[in-house]
């Protein structure tokens, strides 16, 4: 029973972190129709900044700076590279592949700098744990859940109540009509990329915190697991991304928790379980759980 609770809580924390990343995917996709393959390296970039800066600025200062710089980088990538390609559906496809190119360059550079090292981020939780009734939880996981909840609520409020959020939703609905109504697509897009970059930098901290050993060159790859999360929910739906992230996080934690019972599937199946779940869902619902089937006109 404690095992189950343990796994559930761990899954919840993991899902919360995935949600930060997946929400980034969704925001970018809504604003620009682009699936950002460079998200993993943006995340790694944010984490790397925190790791390098925390000695001088302290954890909070380093995190704040990393969030701002990563947001600026993401915004700049969109504004100065991707937006050259235009705003229509075909160029969104092309820009998706451009992000793969950006990812290759960024990831190679970061991997070269990090090398084989494990970087600590100097986070205040360390390896402290809290007793919650029968289960023991790492403080970093509780922090992940709490921070994600607050930030995600904030992002949803941003969608709902600000004029930027309104522009974003209008652009996602129909880019051309939104542009005719005076929505500045370029700015809305760049804003969305900034937001996604900030979320990615924040997620990096929790992905590298205890019980993970620290920030490595492969941390960005873990963020790829948020892809299935975003797809599961349907790429254009923030609520879906949230639900998808929880499903993926819980699946991963449960598979790892019950590994001995699941040994038929092989060691380390937890790492690939999200993809198995995604395939199953796509078989039944090709547009994701919350995705609407698009109506097409010629």
């Amino acid at each position, binding site marked *: 029973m404690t095992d189950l609770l343990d796994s559930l809580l761990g899954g919840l924390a993991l899902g919360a972190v995935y949600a930060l990343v997946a929400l980034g995917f969704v925001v970018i996709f809504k604003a620009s129709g682009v699936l950002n393959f460079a998200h993993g390296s943006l995340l790694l970039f944010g984490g790397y900044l925190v790791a390098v800066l925390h000695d001088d600025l302290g954890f909070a200062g380093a995190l704040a700076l990393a969030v701002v710089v990563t947001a600026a980088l993401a915004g700049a990538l969109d504004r100065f590279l991707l937006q050259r390609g235009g705003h229509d559906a075909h160029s969104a*496809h092309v820009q998706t592949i451009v992000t793969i190119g950006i990812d290759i360059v960024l990831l*190679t550079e970061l991997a070269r700098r990090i090398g084989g090292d494990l970087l600590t981020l100097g986070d205040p939780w360390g390896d402290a744990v809290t007793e919650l009734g029968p289960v023991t939880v790492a403080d970093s996981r509780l922090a992940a859940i709490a921070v994600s909840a607050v930030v995600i609520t904030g992002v949803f409020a941003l969608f709902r109540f600000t004029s930027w959020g309104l522009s974003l939703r209008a652009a996602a609905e129909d880019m051309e009509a939104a542009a005719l109504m005076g929505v500045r697509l370029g700015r809305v897009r760049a804003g969305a990329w900034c937001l996604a970059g900030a979320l990615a930098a924040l997620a990096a901290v929790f992905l590298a915190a205890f019980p993970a050993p620290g920030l490595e060159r492969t941390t960005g790859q873990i963020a790829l697991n948020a892809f299935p999360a975003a797809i599961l929910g349907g790429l254009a739906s923030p609520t879906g991304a949230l639900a998808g992230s929880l499903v993926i996080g819980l699946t991963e934690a449960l598979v790892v928790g019950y590994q001995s019972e699941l040994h038929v599937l092989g060691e380390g199946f937890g790492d690939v379980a999200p993809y198995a779940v995604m395939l199953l869902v796509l078989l039944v619902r090709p547009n994701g759980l919350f995705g609407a089937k698009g109506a097409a006109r010629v």
Partner: protein
Amino acid sequence: MSDRITALLTHRRATLLVVAVLLCLPPFYLDAFWLRIGLFSMAAAIGAVGLALLSGTAGQLSLGHAFFLAVGAYGYTWLAGDPGPGLPTALAVPLAVLMAGLAGGLFSPVAGRVKGIYLGIATLALVFLGHHVLLTAESVTGGFNGRSVPPLSLGGFTFDSDGGLNVLGVPFGAEERLWFLGLALFALTWFTARGLLRSRPGRALAALRDSETAAAVMGVDVARHRSAAFVVSSMYAGLAGVLLALAFRRVVPDYFGLVLSVDYLAMIVIGGLGSVAGATAGAVFVTALPLLMTRYADQLPLVAAPGSADGAVGPTEAARYLYGAAIVLVLLYAPDGLHGLARRARDRLRRRRTPTTAPDTAVPSPPPPAAAARPKEHTP
């Protein structure tokens, strides 16, 4: 008019013959290093042509190519080896290709219905799940350390270094022999793929890419064509996998990761989407670049020799910077890739050479596919 066409045809055939002879020469003059670059490039080109059929023609984004390469490579190794059925190697090659096609077919419930970007992510799943299986199913795949690949033998002729074969005074080792096998397989790929693109299903796929709804209205069975494109593309990948396995002589799971899939995507993007020649050029570029940079690292500025001090820009990194940047630049500034650049250069040359052409000889070049695929311009 008709004799002009025959002249053109014989001219074509002569060019083809010259190219074929030129391609047969390297084993007599170059050493094993260059031959290996050529071999890997040919294998990559076969795989890239398959991906170009899928992504460039059918408009489907696939990141699962590494998985199908792995099916081909491991399929051959298992079918021809021990443990495994131990079939004759000449039989194992086509069977491995069919296996890759079958794997693509099994994926067709997803590949037929999921489109574009969604398919890209769905195929991502194949790479990760496939890698996991390669590591886990040790009795078939040999686990983390992989398996050694039995050399191919065709009617008593074995593609390895044994036997001390000498052709025209040149000792023929494994690389020299495999070069000709690679050439034959590549020629097969080149002609089948070009034929396929010009055939009825090829045109149906192009229609599908440009507008799914319009194609469906014209009577194209959307799901069936999408899955068929996926199966054909995975069969080419399987063939490439077999050739790679023969060239490497050992297959290991870590080679067939996400990076490999991204490499293949880079090849077709740099070469120009939807063209066989472009995919080939892209494959040679992406494959040869890191190998050449490793070889000449000490002579290149800004590049450190492999294995030197931590944090220096090694040849592998430098190559990756270059082709990452190449993807970005090609897509933003020359969306039809190397193929498009070459065609534009050729058109300009031709125009300069014959400033006043008679209207019946001036063959209008077809519009670039990227322009045809663009449904509307950016309005705001």
